């Protein structure tokens, strides 16, 4: 499913109209002298599930964090639903966007983290209801009712009143997914969400994500080392190495019949494991 590039400049298109849900154009990112993203291009369509794979240090997590501007980028442009992320364009030059603008786009791009990052001073229920109440102004009762539904969806209805410290890693991560879903985001970003889990807890989290992917209700960009998940759940797999996208395409093609030597070398580690 290669994505066709439109000739219309996304800037001329109003938010919410057609065009890719996420558009990444020639993005560069440097940490001091180290260039971790060296011109990344990627379009993700609305409802699409994209898995990004690649060796550590390939820039995949950095790219993900650029999409919701947890990292700034030095060159190029990122659009979410046709809105430029993190910058405003004035006279052809990019200037930093106002804090409120950045926050507004972030609210549309929920993120699930490797270390869960649940708020430890709030119960599972409050963790999930907090964003809608605080950011979206949803009435508390309504948000909590929705939070209960979402906790039920990730199989944790009975843990609503538990604090994160009382939950297993897998349970915490499922609460974190519910927290992200509660924002009803346009895009969900998953940053190696099973990497910090004990092996026996990985399955329960992947099952929730698989269920989510199958529903195609939300655009998902998933940085992962779980090849089985990528193969089964992704519409498209993107292989990054050395700060660029090396290959992308349907999972059968990218994982099943890799073209580049770099990808073959990378995949070999998983088949022998």
């Amino acid at each position: 499913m290669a994505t066709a590039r439109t000739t219309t400049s996304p800037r001329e298109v109003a938010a919410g109209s057609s065009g890719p849900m996420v558009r990444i154009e020639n993005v560069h990112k440097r940490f001091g002298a180290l260039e971790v993203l060296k011109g990344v291009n990627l379009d993700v369509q609305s409802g699409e599930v994209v898995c990004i794979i690649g060796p550590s240090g390939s820039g995949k997590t950095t790219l993900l964090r650029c999409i919701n501007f947890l990292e700034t980028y030095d060159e190029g442009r990122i659009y979410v639903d046709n809105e430029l992320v993190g910058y405003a364009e004035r006279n052809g030059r990019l200037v930093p966007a106002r804090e409120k603008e950045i926050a507004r786009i972030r609210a549309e791009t929920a993120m699930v983290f490797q270390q869960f990052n649940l708020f430890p001073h709030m119960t599972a229920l409050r963790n999930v209801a907090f964003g809608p109440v605080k950011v979206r102004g949803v009435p508390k009762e309504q948000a909590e009712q929705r939070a209960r539904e979402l906790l039920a969806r990730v199989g944790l209805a009975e843990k609503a009143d538990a604090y994160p410290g009382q939950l297993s890693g897998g349970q915490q991560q499922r609460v974190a997914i519910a927290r992200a879903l509660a924002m009803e985001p346009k895009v969900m970003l998953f940053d190696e969400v099973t990497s910090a889990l004990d092996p026996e807890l990985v399955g329960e989290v992947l099952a929730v994500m698989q269920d989510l992917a199958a529903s195609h209700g939300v655009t998902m960009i998933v940085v992962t080392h779980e090849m089985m998940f990528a193969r089964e759940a992704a519409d498209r797999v993107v292989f990054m190495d050395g700060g660029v996208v090396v290959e992308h395409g349907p999972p059968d093609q990218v994982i099943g019949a890799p073209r580049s030597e770099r990808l073959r070398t990378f995949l070999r580690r998983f088949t022998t494991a």
Partner: protein
Amino acid sequence: MQTVIDNFGLLMRGLAVTLQLSALIIVIGTTIGVFGGLGLLYGPAIVRAILRGYVDIVRGTPLLVIIFLIFYGLPALNVDISGFGAAVIAFSLFAGAHVSEIIRGAVAAVPKGQTDAAKALGLTFWPRIGSIILPQALPIILPPWVNTAVEMVKGSSLVVLVSVSDLMFATVKVAERTGDPMPLYITAAAIYIVVNLAISRFGVWLERRISYGVPV
């Protein structure tokens, strides 16, 4: 012992001044400390540099020197100030510097992932600080903050040197007049201990209250 009973009213009036002074210092000092601590972490470079200078200079200066600097310094600049006013300013600056450092350290100790998660939800700076970061920093802030509060109550006895009629002042005056210092100073010590124990207990109670789901 009779001297203590005879002059108990005077001592209590002194205690009232001590409590009033201490409460003002703690409230103003904590307010300075919250903004100072956050400024040290999140402020622009110039703000950080100014705050760093303030904190380091004040923390490196004896409290009494600061009190005298304000008490004798401001009138020299044609600013009229009472001993009580000078004491409030000096102590608040002193407490503010210490609390700034306490808040800075505690906020910095909250894992960075918490800020990431709060940002990712779309929270702007102040809601992020108020709802996510400070509540988690609070358990770290509390013990040294209680310590500082206790130090301030004890330190407030220094105002006797700028003629503020606090508990210490009342004790000194009565002791001089009656020539019977021992029972008076023992009583003063006991009153200071009771006040500070109350603050410590309050701190412990607060710590329990804010420990979430994790047994202390």
